[in-house]
């Protein structure tokens, strides 16, 4: 009892957060879970249908298609984004003058890339009369409607994500600064070439940062919405080729008012992200080097 009374001031400080976490996070999470087992169209009272929404999901070809589109998007754009981020960070970290300027310039796309304005610009650049085809035309290459053709539309979104490699790059740069010079010099004295130093010294020492970026980028990429929504006019076309998971969820919830179905989609998304994050942590043990293993041995 005395301990509880001592806790009172802390709970007063925590009051806004407690209300928020119960009323806007945990409560709605559980409510969404309940909705996912019901037929709910916002205006009716939810009607219990058991696992029906979940079984229906995996027989819904558009849903399965949206899964495929999202996996391709995550699987291609995240590694490319990371590779660019790491390469440019390593290049910038070699004591060049003007580092701060380059870092800022390369970061600008990350700052603006999530906005509607940039998505609209992208729609323009990759349109059949757009900037890209104009530039290709200068070289005598006849372009195509990058956004209007199902074969290339998703790739314009992947390019848009990779274009924003500045954010992980800044984190890589901070990580590279932590690597002590004497370790690299020692490797050089031992006769390690530039590539060997990168693969054997820099990369292992940087691996916790790589891991951190990877986890963050994968979680973020699974939830991408704005570019696909804006560029495809909310439809996910052409031929559903840009039908991201979250876009299909939006269509079901706010286009068809199938709230129960959308809630089931949201919970499956949470599971997918949790599995990928968990997998990252398990696999991470094999390649992330925290620097204390050697000391103990």
């Amino acid at each position, binding site marked *: 009892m005395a301990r509880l009374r001592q806790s009172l001031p*802390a709970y007063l*400080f925590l009051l806004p957060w407690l209300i928020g976490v119960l009323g*806007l996070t945990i409560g709605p999470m559980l409510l969404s879970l309940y909705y996912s087992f019901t037929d709910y169209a916002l205006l009716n009272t939810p009607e219990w249908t058991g696992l029906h929404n979940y079984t229906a999901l995996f027989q819904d070809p558009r849903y399965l298609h949206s899964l495929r589109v999202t996996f391709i998007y995550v699987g291609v754009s995240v590694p490319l984004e990371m590779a660019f981020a790491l390469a440019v960070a390593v290049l910038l970290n070699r004591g060049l003058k003007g580092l701060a300027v380059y870092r800022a310039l390369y970061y600008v*796309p990350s700052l603006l890339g999530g*906005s509607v304005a940039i998505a609209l610009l992208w729609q323009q650049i990759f349109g059949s009369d757009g900037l890209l085809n104009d530039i290709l035309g200068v070289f005598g290459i006849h372009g195509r409607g990058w956004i209007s053709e199902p074969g290339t539309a998703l790739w314009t979104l992947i390019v848009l994500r990779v274009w924003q490699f500045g954010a992980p790059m800044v984190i890589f740069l*901070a990580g590279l600064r932590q690597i002590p010079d004497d370790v690299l010099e020692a490797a050089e004295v031992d006769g390690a070439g530039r590539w060997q130093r990168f693969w054997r010294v820099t990369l292992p020492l940087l691996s916790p940062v790589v891991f951190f970026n990877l986890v963050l980028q994968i*979680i973020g990429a699974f939830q991408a919405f704005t570019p696909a929504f804006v560029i495809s006019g909310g439809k996910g076309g052409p031929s559903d080729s840009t039908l991201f998971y979250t876009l299909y969820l*939006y269509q079901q919830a706010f286009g068809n008012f199938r709230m129960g179905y959308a*809630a089931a989609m949201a919970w499956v998304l*949470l599971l997918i992200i949790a599995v990928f994050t968990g997998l990252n942590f398990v696999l991470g043990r094999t390649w992330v080097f925290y620097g204390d293993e050697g000391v103990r041995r």
Partner: protein
Amino acid sequence: MKRVLAHLGLSAGALIMLYPLLWMVSASLRKNTDIFDHPGLIPEHPTLGNYALGWSSTGTSFGVYIMNSLIICAAVVIGNVITCSLTAYAFARMRFVGRKALFAVMLGTIMLPAHVTLIAQYSIFRNLNWIDTFWPMIVPSFLATDAFFVFLMVQFIRSIPVELDDAARIDGCGYWGIYRRIILPLLSPALVTTAIFSFIWTWNNFFSQLIYLSTRTRLTVPVALRGFLDATGSSEWGGLFAMSVVTLVPVVVVFVVFQRRILAGMAHTGLK
């Protein structure tokens, strides 16, 4: 020689990266008929006409959308700064029953995809008659729901020496006094970082503004921009680019002014 090559490569890379943005600015200064004529950056007959046209061509002045966005952004910044710091202070400095469990819950909510609360939140806000108002965007920030900022501030407060708290306590300060007079002033770098990112993310946030707002005069900048071509009859690219530039300028200005803080904040916490 190697250095020159590196600089050439990096500058060329930066130019390619920024070319779309520069081109958009240039396109916003051209007549509608000139925009797609050539891919260069220098407009032949530069004009500000698109800005005047775009500002009013959706039927509602663009100033209204900007005002709406600014109101929401200001409220979110204030809400996050106040409630996240209160929460962070309790977690970092106070002892109470259930502290570890609640801290774990707070950490767990950082990575939670918003979609898993979305449907239920929407139906709750609907029952409160908050659809088509600013409340669904503003109220969560006054309930410290952005756990990321709480975490950022907890880390920061832990680096403030506890001796300062003790000294204040001896001088007669209670928890509130310590929070107001010691922690808040010393926390100001983290508060500024929180304010900057709250502003940028809210300004760019599209999803919740899309689902909650519908009346034209209540729309925010991103939602209005996305409906621009529909509202004006789809060929007014010049006006669209002009207004796009207008919507990006506040973010760029904030970045230029607070560049060092933003990049340092990114590097320490992995903020996107």
